């Protein structure tokens, strides 16, 4: 399993309750009886300088939508979100770091997240590929697992293109 110094890449994403979260999408369906809100179509979630993009985002929340929406309870709206699952061209960017994959989930209570399938992790010019990226949202630490983990470090000379896999 590879590991690299991008420790603050995901620190606090979604679990940081100091910053508002902006979510944009083509559609949203809230089903209070199963406590889910599903955003569909070019979903774009932004909190401070972290952005998550995906095609479909399912949000699992606590309590009732009506109450959750209305009262800023102890944790505010974001505290109400228990977990969210992203599906379809998942892309997370923060400053010069990005992660892409097919699916991903964020567990707000355990403060853990995971991106799966064709995972590509980049920071500046260095790139890492694998199958599963496990992230600890509290510390920002992550581990990349998967059969073809390769670590392309930033080549010294700027013009040397990384070998195409």
């Amino acid at each position, binding site marked *: 399993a590879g590991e690299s110094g991008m420790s603050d890449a995901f620190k606090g994403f979604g679990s*940081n*309750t*100091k*910053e*508002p*979260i*902006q*979510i*944009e*999408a*083509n*559609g*949203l*369906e*809230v*089903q*209070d*009886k199963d406590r889910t809100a599903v*955003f569909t179509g070019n979903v774009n979630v932004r909190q401070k300088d972290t952005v998550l993009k995906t095609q479909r985002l399912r949000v699992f929340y606590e309590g*009732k*939508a*009506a*109450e*959750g*929406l*209305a*009262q*800023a*309870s*102890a*944790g*505010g*709206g*974001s*505290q*109400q*979100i228990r977990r969210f699952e992203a599906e379809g061209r998942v892309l997370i960017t923060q400053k010069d770091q990005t992660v892409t994959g097919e699916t991903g989930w964020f567990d707000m209570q355990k403060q853990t997240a995971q991106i799966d399938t064709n995972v590509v992790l980049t920071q500046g010019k260095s790139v890492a590929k694998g199958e599963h990226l496990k992230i600890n949202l509290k510390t920002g630490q992550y581990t990349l697992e998967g059969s073809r983990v390769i670590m392309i470090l930033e080549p010294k000379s700027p013009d040397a293109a990384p070998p195409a896999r």
Partner: protein
Amino acid sequence: MAETGEIGGRAVGGSGAVPPRVPPPAPDRDALRSAADRHSRRVRRLKVAIPVIGVAVVVAIAGVTWVRSHLMAGLGVRQVLFSKDGLTMVEPRLTGRAGDRRYDVTAAKAFQDVRNPKVIALEGVDGHLEMADGTWAKIESTAGRYDGTRETLDLDGDVTVVTSAGWRATTAVAHVDLVSGKIDAERDVRITGRAAQIDSDALQASEEGRHLVFTGNVRMTVQPQADAEAPPGPPAPAPR
């Protein structure tokens, strides 16, 4: 050309003491003839007015009883004005029950067209719905249209819904299905709560707001933890 009289809500017929009869001064012939003309004109007008009043009264009774019986509703009206086109209710108040929802809807004005009594046009709508579980919703709009056949209420212009749960919704146009309780809000939908706000082009709300489908340019903002929550209350009494 039939002359139609405007029958306002004015009190008809004198009340109080009848003025003493004073023999008229010796009228000359012209005065007599013009008085006769005036009299016949009045008779002609009455001949026309009476059937119109009759129709209007029938429409009013039909409309009011129909609304009352249909919605098991109490309909209070401060004033009813009849005109050849139909019946205008001033400050009507409709209270009643639909399913387990109790409602109390007032309007500045309601107009019921003679030709289509099942439709009531409303101005200045102010509705209050109370659900069985005690939750309530207050609905306001500049104009509205109640359709008795389809049992729908279309609201138009600054439609605002405030609910006991604490969130508030505004939209430009909303269609309410009074039987199923489904609400379709069109154009500039905004739902605001202390914890979050959702904007979209349109919204379909059903199951008393427990199932919401927002479509088009959905933007949601989830507020962070409200740091300065309510000011700290008095220290809890020390447990004995």
